[in-house]
């Protein structure tokens, strides 16, 4: 019999029962919830008159809608305030732990879970948010779900799931200077396309992945959904164990050692079979940037926008042309040097302490370009605290940047942090869809280093020229 993949090992432990000819009843260890995709789920529980099945396995925090300035004041936007208030009420009514605004643990769910040690190897986790795949960095099966499924997990701690196919992507070798984990994932999505991972759960492996910090690994798993994959995961190792150790909800003392013994069994067997497998050379990866309206439309920053005429499929070509028209670009355009007035450093993809350290390194001793408005948004209150503790705030402020308060912010522009129509924004977030950062906004996805370099020059910049 063939060996098992990491994914299989975790999956099998969480199957409660299998419906003949149907999906499996799949047990969820932790559900994270936020204000946008949960109200209708709680409504459903009320209509049925049923409680939450396991209140201790649910953690809530508001993130999508919250302002990133003056969080101590009532939220000005009526609808946003109502939604956040509804989350407070739902958590109180149903007995769920809530890290509300002004709580020291508040932040973007996918930043909060790992930093508190709630996310641990071998777990299954869901959230009504597609970037739940982030937690796979710890060797978890973590994926986004819709609100009906949020309700199912609240009511039964289970979901009906059909097992996805397995893919492994190996990145071997050493990354070049100026290349970060964000570049790895943008490179992979450009290679495999925005739908290339659909139907799969992806394991990221290889020496380049092993060498990454947990923050960097989270960035990669976070964006596995942008290839259409249900999620991504990475086998836990000493980097993982050291990250989890000592965190608030991590096992302590002898319990931790016992847990590590179990976690060390979480890897793909040498003879495990994957339905698809790809291997790339880390040395081929350069700083990446997107030029279009899906995350698969990415190039090395020094390359030119691809030529529409090279696309053979007519429908594909029409969609490509539509994207370029929206972005105001043309086939063959060079992106380096294009003026950019907005820069966003934040989101569940790139708002962890490491990201702000990288930004500080690039901007240290330099000045932000006068034309640039920058949103610098920590992923959580804990990250914010660390920014101040490490003096990163001083470096950023000296360079002309303002540090805002935690939330999803300009990643999806549900609050006031928007990019105006027609303006370009080099953004460390995860989606460059039309209107994602505000109606008519034009998003170029890149690493925090590239975003920082662009903010300094006021035009698209290859960070390797500054470091």
């Amino acid at each position, binding site marked *: 019999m063939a060996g098992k993949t990491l994914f299989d090992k975790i999956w099998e432990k969480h199957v409660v029962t299998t419906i003949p000819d149907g999906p499996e009843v799949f047990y969820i260890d932790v559900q994270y919830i936020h204000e946008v995709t949960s109200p209708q789920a709680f*409504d459903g529980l009320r209509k049925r008159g049923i409680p939450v099945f396991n209140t201790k396995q649910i953690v809530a925090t508001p993130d999508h*809608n919250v302002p990133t300035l003056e969080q101590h004041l009532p939220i000005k936007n009526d609808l946003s305030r109502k*939604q956040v208030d509804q989350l407070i009420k739902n958590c109180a009514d149903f007995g769920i732990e809530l890290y509300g605004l002004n709580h020291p643990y508040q932040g973007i769910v996918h930043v909060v879970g790992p930093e508190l040690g709630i996310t641990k190897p071998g777990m299954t986790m869901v959230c009504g948010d597609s970037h739940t795949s982030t937690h796979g960095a710890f060797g978890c099966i973590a994926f986004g779900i819709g609100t*009906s499924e949020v309700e199912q997990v609240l009511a039964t701690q289970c979901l009906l799931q059909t097992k996805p196919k397995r893919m492994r992507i190996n990145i071997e070798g050493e990354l070049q200077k100026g290349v970060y984990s964000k570049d790895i994932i943008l490179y992979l999505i450009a290679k495999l396309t925005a739908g290339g991972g659909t139907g799969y759960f992806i394991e990221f492996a290889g020496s380049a992945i092993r060498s990454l910090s947990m923050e960097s690994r989270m960035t990669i798993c976070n964006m596995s959904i942008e290839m259409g994959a249900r999620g991504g995961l990475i086998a836990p190792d000493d980097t993982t164990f050291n990250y989890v150790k000592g965190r608030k909800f991590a096992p302590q003392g002898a319990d931790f050692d016992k847990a590590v013994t179990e976690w060390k069994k979480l890897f793909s067997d040498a003879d495990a079979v994957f339905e698809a497998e790809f291997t790339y050379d880390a040395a081929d990866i350069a700083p990446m940037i997107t030029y279009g309206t899906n995350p698969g439309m990415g190039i090395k920053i020094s390359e030119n926008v691809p030529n529409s005429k090279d696309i053979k499929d007519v429908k594909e070509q029409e969609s490509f042309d539509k994207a370029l028209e929206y972005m105001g670009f043309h086939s063959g355009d060079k992106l380096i040097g294009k003026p950019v007035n907005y820069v966003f450093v934040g989101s569940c993809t790139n708002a962890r302490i490491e990201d702000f350290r990288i930004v500080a390194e690039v901007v240290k001793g330099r000045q932000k370009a006068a034309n640039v408005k920058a949103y610098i948004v920590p992923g959580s209150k804990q990250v914010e605290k660390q920014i101040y503790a490490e003096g990163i705030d001083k470096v950023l402020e000296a360079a002309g940047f303002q540090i805002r308060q935690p939330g999803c912010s300009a990643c999806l522009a549900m609050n006031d942090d928007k990019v105006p129509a027609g303006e370009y924004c080099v953004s460390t977030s995860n989606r460059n869809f039309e209107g994602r950062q505000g109606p008519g906004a034009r998003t170029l996805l890149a690493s925090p280093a590239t975003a920082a370099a662009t903010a300094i020059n006021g035009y698209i910049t290859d960070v390797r020229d500054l470091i």
Partner: protein
Amino acid sequence: MEKFISLTTTAVPLSIENIDTDQIIPARFLKATTRDGFGENLFRDWRYNSDNTPKDFVLNDKKYSGKILAAGKNFGCGSSREHAAWAIHDAGFKVVISSFFADIFKNNALNNGLLPITVSPEFLQKIFNAVEANPKAEIKVDLENQIVQIVASGEKEAFEINAYKKVCMINGFDNIDYLLSIKDKIKEYEAKRA
């Protein structure tokens, strides 16, 4: 959930690829706390200018109507927002046909009685051609037999659906009813793990 057995109706052709859920329902309309009313903002920024005047877009084109939305490949990619399925359903659609769906959208649609049908790229093109040539062209969806057919030409194709999901759609069953019925089994599983 509403039952779905079969349907014969005209279709709206939206032959764009990689339509993401941010286009289907932009994030700024996700602030509601109920499931209703999302239909009026379906494809908001493709349908209307910022001053609310209508744009040249297929949903504003009076010659097209019907309960089927036919769309290009990788439909529903991006965000997990179920609001996308709610918006399409609320706008009166019962079926979405594409050559490729994003996973989460597909689940969300099925959980709301909106049937996602995956057809071959060739058959999808035939549907686009038929509807664009004659907006009154009818498409027949037979879930029982898993067949989708262009009525006038008789061209048809079989489609796949998970047997369990098919039973749910035909009978209007929710997953949650089933999960609640096996609560004891879930508790047993928890006790065994502890």
